[in-house]
């Protein structure tokens, strides 16, 4: 726990000791360590500590009886600010249809999240349509069809067609069939795979999504900035979903992703069941990252 490490640094202050800038620098070294252990990006940490230092050497901390607690509060509040402070909702389901497109690296949880979003829409009495636009992964279409079937949601799929065409046809189908929300599952891909990134650009151009969501694994390490930056540069993301938050990864990738894209993290996937979905809470995430 960070506050315990601070006790060690500040214990000599009780009584005669006067809080010095050196004490604060030592405390911030511990903060730096904690953030790096939490997988926050190295550069983001460096900038964060610089910024925190100017605040922490201010009067409020220097004159405080509990400087350790003050510093934790400064750091925590700054993390919350970096994470966007408030919860941000998804684009409302008010078009005919509203379109969400999910993208991200391989295995991050996209297909499962599509199912979750469809269930969430159903529970709001909206009619969802799932679109199976991953034509590469073995049994990906089957996977989405099984998920759709489990919640009574239709899955659109098309043989002998490329993903942009599948999504485009799906939208025409959705318009004709009073679908409220169309959710496109796409294949996992590397941000450095130009061909597949172009495919996503084409999907976006064909369906004009109301949400273009990057699904990122909460246990992602330093690579989070690279992937988020590239996806955002090429596609213009509208939001981010963090998956597998039911594990014990500290989730520093959240800070890195938000810092490099400025995109709101809207969703927290917290399990394998289709009901395991929550809005993303910046304050809870900040506490988790600090450990």
């Amino acid at each position, binding site marked *: 726990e960070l506050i315990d490490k601070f006790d060690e640094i500040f214990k000599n202050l009780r009584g005669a000791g006067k809080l010095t800038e050196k004490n604060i620098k030592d405390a911030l070294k511990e903060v730096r*360590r904690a953030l*790096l*252990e*939490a*997988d926050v990006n*190295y550069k983001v940490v460096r900038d964060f500590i610089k910024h925190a230092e100017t605040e922490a050497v201010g009067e409020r901390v220097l004159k405080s009886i509990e400087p350790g607690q003050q510093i934790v509060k400064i750091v925590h509040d700054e993390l919350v600010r970096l994470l966007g402070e408030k919860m941000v909702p998804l684009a409302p389901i008010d078009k005919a249809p509203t379109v969400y497109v999910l993208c991200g*690296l*391989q*295995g*991050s*949880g996209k297909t499962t999240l599509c199912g979750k979003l469809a269930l969430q829409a159903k529970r709001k009495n909206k009619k969802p349509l799932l679109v199976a636009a991953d034509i*590469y*992964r*073995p*049994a*990906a279409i*089957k*996977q989405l069809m*099984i*998920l759709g079937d*489990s919640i009574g949601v239709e899955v659109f799929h098309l043989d002998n067609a490329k993903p942009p065409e599948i999504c485009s046809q799906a939208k025409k189908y959705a318009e004709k069939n009073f679908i409220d929300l169309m959710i496109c599952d796409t294949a996992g891909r*590397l*941000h*450095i795979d130009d061909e597949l990134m172009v495919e996503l650009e084409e999907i976006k151009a064909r369906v004009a999504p109301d949400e273009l969501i990057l699904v990122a*694994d909460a*246990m*992602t*390490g*330093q*690579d*989070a900035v*690279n*992937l988020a930056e590239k996806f955002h540069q090429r596609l213009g993301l509208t939001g981010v979903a963090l998956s*597998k938050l*039911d*594990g*014990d*990864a*500290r989730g*520093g*990738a959240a800070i890195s992703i938000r810092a490099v894209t400025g995109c709101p993290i809207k969703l927290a996937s917290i399990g*394998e069941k289709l009901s395991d979905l929550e809005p993303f809470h910046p304050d809870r995430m900040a506490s988790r990252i600090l450990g």
Partner: protein
Amino acid sequence: IVTGRKLDDDLIDEIEESLLKADIGVAATDRIIERLRQLAKEAKATDSDTVFGILKDEIKKILESNRKSLMGNGIRPHIWLITGVNGTGKTTTVGKLAHYFKNNGKSVMIAACDTFRAAAVEQLAIWAERSGVVLVTAQSGADPASVAFDAASSAVSKGIDYLLIDTAGRLHTKANLMEELKKIRRVTEKVVPSNQIFSKLIIDGTTGQNALSQVKVFTDAVGCDGLIVTKLDGTARGGIVVAIAQELSVPVDFIGIGESIDDLEAFNADSFVEALFE
């Protein structure tokens, strides 16, 4: 890293940055830099080229210290229990391993012990077909341990060299799922001696410090004889395996470098360390 400079704070900072960026982690980075200072002093090295060479050798040493031979020694079957958290690439890696071993003249069988996730068996069946190996399955929702038992018994009676057991992704924080994994191993041990069963943990190459926790918990449950690090065809360096080698002494057996059946390479510490610093 600029060449021709002295071993000074700037050089150390730059080295620290590349180690952290590679997901080596703050604790392992501190230890490596400490050791680097000592070795550089002993070698009276101050220019960045020599220091950098010492650094790479030290990391190679860490990575090679736990290596064991991979190919069977004539005893059969070797059973590889493929474990790992969700989405790391287990099923795909099983397909690649089957192909790899077949290319090395071994007979291979696969067991579909993910009886839980949507289309998991269908996905594995496609890989079994691509690699040309027999797949042992059961009904959806069946107890994975009973599939493992059947597959192990069949592997023994057929004189199979390698049985690869694909398991469902599971977070190490879920006690009931870790119990299920233990049961799979326990039941397999009724068929084949424990020293013929190898637990291989599949780690996603983009994973950060959480991989240490994964290794610890999976080791506690069913042992961890080797790692396979996937998705290293991306921009992640997979440096967490250096921390794992140092702290937990688990070696890397293979790396996954793509989504096709031959995108699997036996681990090579030299090329891995070079790639860490590219």
